[in-house]
């Protein structure tokens, strides 16, 4: 799955370079492990809220790459009929109520989704993904407080890639850590190596189980790395602003782990990679073959 995300995003980077994409595209390369690790413990009925940088969450949640490409290309067959685009991919039926263009905007939604799940007795949980930059939006703290007071089955996942757009987050963020801020609101809050898919899966698994058992919400800070710029094409105005990071590759990390466990990843990878490449290529071709949305659609879906 990490490979699928990697290939999906690399395909978009390539499309962008060739001028085949419109709008702003934020890629998740380097952050695959957080999405895959967290979503691995979710099941049907659970819901996730995501961000402007959400392709990896959606793929990890099991969305169809073809319909995702179609949405990002603004085609009729996209998940949102082409009305959402890269920043707003969503598939409620598949447990992804969706991405949000407003940083922090989706966080309280997860509290409400979790509240509804508990009240309706569905046994589902809600997970909110957001970034380290979102940790400075007041609504995060309002949401943490509500989640704890209401003891709802929610998991807050902060994907800390070190950057708020082009600003190193530490330069605009006070206090010891984001997890420490969260802990002050009285919920279990820990930090984990976000590039280690196994570690993320373990930590998220415990938190999701806690939520399902009615033992309340948790907070998980996943320390990870953003390999590419804030969005594709930023070179046009963003002077080199990155400190030299030597980003860890979550995929290689997994392979090392396998080796450590005496398994040989090479064969596995080559076979999976072939499969996934085919799948992504086919998905893209399918999406590109899609028609544009009919113009009438622009005037629908405002009200029920």
């Amino acid at each position, binding site marked *: 799955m990490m490979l699928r995300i990697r290939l999906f995003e690399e395909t978009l980077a390539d499309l962008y370079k060739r001028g085949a994409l419109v709008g702003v595209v934020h890629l998740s390369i380097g952050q695959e492990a957080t999405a895959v690790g967290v979503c691995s413990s979710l099941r049907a009925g659970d819901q996730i809220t995501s961000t402007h940088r959400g392709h990896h969450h959606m793929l990890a949640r099991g969305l169809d790459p073809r319909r995702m490409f179609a949405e990002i290309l603004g085609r009729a067959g996209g998940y949102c009929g082409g009305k959402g685009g890269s920043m707003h991919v969503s598939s*409620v039926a598949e447990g992804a109520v*969706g991405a949000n263009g407003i940083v922090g*905007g989706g966080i*309280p*939604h997860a509290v*409400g989704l979790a509240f*509804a799940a508990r009240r309706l007795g569905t046994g589902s949980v809600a997970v909110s993904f957001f970034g380290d930059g979102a940790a400075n939006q007041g609504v995060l703290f309002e949401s943490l407080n*509500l989640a704890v007071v209401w003891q709802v089955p929610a998991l807050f996942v902060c994907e800390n890639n070190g950057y708020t757009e082009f600003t190193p987050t530490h330069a605009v963020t006070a206090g010891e850590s984001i997890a420490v801020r969260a802990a002050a609101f009285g919920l279990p809050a820990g930090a984990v190596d976000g590039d280690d898919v196994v570690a993320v899966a373990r930590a998220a698994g415990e938190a999701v189980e806690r939520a399902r058992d009615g033992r309340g919400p948790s907070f998980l800070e996943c320390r990870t790395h953003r390999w590419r710029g804030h969005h594709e094409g930023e070179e046009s105005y963003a002077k080199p602003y990155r400190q030299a990071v030597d980003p860890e590759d979550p995929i290689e990390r997994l392979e090392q782990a396998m080796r450590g466990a005496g398994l040989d990843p090479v064969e596995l990878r080559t076979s999976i990679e072939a499969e996934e490449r085919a799948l992504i290529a086919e998905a893209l071709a399918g999406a590109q073959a899609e028609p544009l949305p009919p113009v009438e659609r622009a005037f629908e879906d405002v009200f*029920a």
Partner: protein
Amino acid sequence: MISVAAPSSAKRLAPALADAIAQCMREDSRVVVWGEDVTIGVMGPTRGLAEEFGLERVIDCPISEAGFVGAAVGAAIGGLRPVVDIMFSSFTYVAFDQIANQAGRLRYMTGGQVAVPLVVVGSAGAAGSNAAQHSEVPTALFLNAGGVRVVFPSTPHQAFWLMRAAIRSDDPVIVLHHPALAAARGTVDPEPLALGDAVVHPIGTDVSLLATGLMAHRARSVAESLASEGVSVEVVDVCSLNPMPWKAILTSVEKTGRAVVVDEGRLTCSVASEISAGIAERAFGALAAPVRRLAVPDVPIPFAPNLEAAVLPSEEDIAAAAREVVRG
């Protein structure tokens, strides 16, 4: 839904809102209520609900408007029908992104995947020196932001039926109620009102007064007093603002050929401006005089009683404007 018996025994506006919520809560267990001090029901619309439905469905919130309105958006998407009492509607400014950019956009952005059956109820208007931050009527902000329905009942009958319609709607609905009308008397009649309805009363032939909330009351009493001067006034109570009851508005104006729009919001980009522009576009030929707008000038609401009174359209202002458009 037509019945002979009165659907609610409420005799005042705020209790009619509360009764509508209570009836919906009895009929539909998905309806939940939250906001600050809703168990006590400080503002009126939630009074008595905690006693009947308990603290699982009537929930006091911390002062986190963006958080609990956002949570209501999520709960609505998740299958509940939350009714959020925001207290004073100007507190929506603290949660404006969640209302405008989230509740009002998510259905569209997801290509219709989600419905957001959310009600946000709040008081709107000046009621005795609550000053700038607790007295304004932000209707136009919600209408321009879009994606949310808006109703503003001025009688117990309107309050009961429009709150009921709001809760049963699959769209986000803002329900405004005027603090000066909380105790306004009236009976709830069996004929329901729906989102998009207007109430035309009294009927008249010389001039149409289009108004909402407290201004609708003032318009009706001006209609009475002008009758004695031989001016026949028709009042269209625009109690639903989104959907806007254009048919009722245009029918009235095409009949009278004259219109005064009375609005307790600020004038610029107001509901009065919208109605005036809409009439000009759709019924220009029928107009015997330009549409007059009466609204709060572009100032905040002052504290001192004499200043507060000075910025609100008074019955005298309304009567004068009506005479003017009629007599030219």
